[in-house]
């Protein structure tokens, strides 16, 4: 079974896992984010919604350190990470999946997931190459963890398959597995269900809830499928043209006139 599990813990505590404070991001004259602020509480599922070009992916890129905001602060577990590089943030516990798949299609599922474990590996290239003592023990330990994730996400049947030959829905699952292998505190999911059929979406939503409930991982989700967003989110943040126009519970967002006007156009939210 999955290790380090804290099931059923209260989602809201006094210290936010992420504090996004007055973030401004622009590319030349184009403003992508204009003073966006919100907090993410430990073990909650927070969805970011908004029309295309609202700045949702820019926001995720700021959180994982790919973009550097010109103004504002990002606090992760109370620590200012605004100027911390991506790989350091990954080590601190921020993992993500990508809108367009970013996996190694020429590697097997196991190897793809193992790449997520590299931040925990201590052996050097030489000892890994000759696979001696510490390197051997280390790989066995990491492989065991990878197997737990494979079991958790039910991808045993594709364990040894080349990822490039897998259907899209399964590749998305492999990417999620790799992100989980980083043992994150905060998992950023950028349109994880785009291009999936209904059955695949249902499976994926189930896995997100399991990850959240069983592994205690906080989820931040960008998704266009309003059905999924309303069903699985604890809270929702709405962006429009780089500004936060609403934040609240799904039932509040559903009725918010600004949201309806800016993005949801009545029928899609109802």
């Amino acid at each position, binding site marked *: 079974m999955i290790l380090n599990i804290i099931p059923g813990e209260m989602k809201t505590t006094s210290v936010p896992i992420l504090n996004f404070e007055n973030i401004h991001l622009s590319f030349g004259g184009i403003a992508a984010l204009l003073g966006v602020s919100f907090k993410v509480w430990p073990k909650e599922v927070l969805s970011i919604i908004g029309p295309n070009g609202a700045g949702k992916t820019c926001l995720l890129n700021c959180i994982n350190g790919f973009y550097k905001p010109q103004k504002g602060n990002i606090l992760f577990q109370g620590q200012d990470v605004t100027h911390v590089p991506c790989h350091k943030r990954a080590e601190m516990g921020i993992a993500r999946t990508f809108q367009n798949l970013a996996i190694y299609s020429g590697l097997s599922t196991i190897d793809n997931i193992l790449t997520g474990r590299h931040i925990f590996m201590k052996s050097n290239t030489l000892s890994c190459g000759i696979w001696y003592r510490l390197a051997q023990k280390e790989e066995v330990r990491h492989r065991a963890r990878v197997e737990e994730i494979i079991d*958790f996400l*039910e991808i045993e049947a594709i*364990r040894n398959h080349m990822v490039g030959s897998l259907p899209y829905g399964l590749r998305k699952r492999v990417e999620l597995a790799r992100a989980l292998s980083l043992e994150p505190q905060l998992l950023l999911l950028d349109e994880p269900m785009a291009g999936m059929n209904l059955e695949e979406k249902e499976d994926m939503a189930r896995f997100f809830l399991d990850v959240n409930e069983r592994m205690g991982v906080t989820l931040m989700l960008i998704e266009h499928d309003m059905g999924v967003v309303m069903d699985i989110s604890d809270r929702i943040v709405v962006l429009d043209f780089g500004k936060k126009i609403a934040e609240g519970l799904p039932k509040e967002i559903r009725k918010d006139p600004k949201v309806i006007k800016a993005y949801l156009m009545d029928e899609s939210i109802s």
Partner: protein
Amino acid sequence: MYQNDTLPKILRDNYQKFGDKKVALRKKKFGIWQEYTWKDYFETVKDFSLGLVKLGFEQGNLAAIVGDTDPEWFIAELSAQAVGGKCVGLFTDGLPSELEYIIVHAGATLVVAKDQEQVDKIIEIKDRILNLKKIIYWEDKGLWNYDEPLLISFDEVKRLGKEFEKSNQGLFEQRIEEGKGDDIAVLCYTSGTTGQPKGVSLSHENILHYARVLCELKEPLEGVDYLAYTSPAWIFEQWVGVCGGLFFPMVVHFCEEPETVIHDIREIAPSFLMLGPRQWESFARTVQVKIKDTSWWKRIFYNWGMGVGYRISSLLQEGKSPSWWLKVYHTLADLFVLRALRDRLGISHGKLLLTGSASMSPDIFRFFHAMGAFIRIIYGGTEANVVCGTGSQDYGFETVGRAFPGVEVKISKEREILVRGKQVFKGYHMDPEATAKRIDHEGWFHTGDAGTINDKEEIIFWDRLEELMELTGGERFSPQYIETKLRFSPYIEDTYVIGDKDKGYVTAIVSIDFSNVAKWLEERNLTFTTFVDLSQKPEVRMVVKGEIEKINRSLPDFAKIKKFINLHKSFDADEAELTRTRKLKRATMSQRYESIIQAMYQGEKSYHVDASVTYRDGRKGMVSAELAINEI
């Protein structure tokens, strides 16, 4: 007489004999085969069993089990039986209403379910199950936050059992000793094609029958690897996986997930494997498709190797022994081609490869036989138990073998296969009327299957009785059985076999396989113009006659085809002669070819046909031809 007449007693003895020196079960988990020794197996059953007692499960109570084929299923079943209970298996794809019918009808007071999917179904119907004490689950994924008071985990039941044992030393062993071979061990529900499913009550002696038969036949099965893949809700897995695993004993392997079975079979290379006909066919298709996609030189090797294999297979079927040079060829083919094929499919160690439950094409038998893997057939059913099976030297592929020791078989006047013996079930659960209908006053069980017994005392299964037709003399025969056999000829694409109460004998309308027959004719430097011309060539009629004569030899006299006619065209789905899945539409055929059929039964030599034909582009035309009526 066997010393141990119940499954828990055999488990206990295996534990005493092997302890933790031998492996009993293997299940792949986290990518590694996890092993349970006989000690682990016995102690887990003991803990779980006493846990059930602690939860109020008493002697004579019934536990329902639903889930994939996992060690937990076997443990739950043996635990219920060990304390004097019985169990009923449910298929995982059953709807809640179907599960409810069986659970309520069987009177289960406990449900052991694998996972969230099954638990959700049981929670949905729990209010309609009287006296439901607990729902036990063995995979907790997704169930972490359920607050259903009836739910309890498998491990928790084991823990309760361990505690219960402290104040009840010796209870488990005493309950095992009290068990008798005649006690009901399992209820198996039949598929219920006619009305609601019926619960077949089976005693320990009943389900141990097949294992004992194999033991008497001296099949070398001790310690072999067996893959438990089918659901134990199906009687076969009870006969082999649960009972055989204990009796021989074998090492029973469980797949990691149902989707990984192909991979797991290859890893295990089981010596004993039972698959349904569709699964063997799927294996054969996989090979054929992959060979088509491979490089040309591999294809050449494959065709050569399988060619040699087919020649050996044909000789063995005819009872001849291959020449020395063919043996040398075969050794080389086996070394370079056949062994690799068997290895790829995971049947390289296969000592006992079985099929059953439905008829399988002889082509598939020949395919695997050519590859060096001999698939044997068993015939039986939930009520009749295992009746017969082919032996290790029966290469005929036509029969389902001779009756097993202790099993009596006879054919009734209505051509029904009747079975008698200790192995026959104890009766339908709470349905004495249905039991009386199937078991007559002499103790013969009426299988509902039609068949015959040949002069070698081998049983030939035809069809379900209701599918049979009756001739004037009252004899019943299966047209579908004859048609299926004829279709195996490379020269016959389809046939329509005729014969009913108004007719004294059997006839057939044959549609030739155009491309194969044309090729055959061309090889003999003979020419033809159209399909009509080809079908009526004397040489072609002789070839078809030869094929029918071959099939006639395996049929009883009254079912032998006496006359046939080669049709001037193929049977066509566009003309509503076949369904889109190429099944014969008998009503349409009898109407459409009424005059041809009459001509055959009126003793005419030929029949002039002016038939309308629909061409593939939708145009309609007329064909005029003289069709010869051939006598055999």
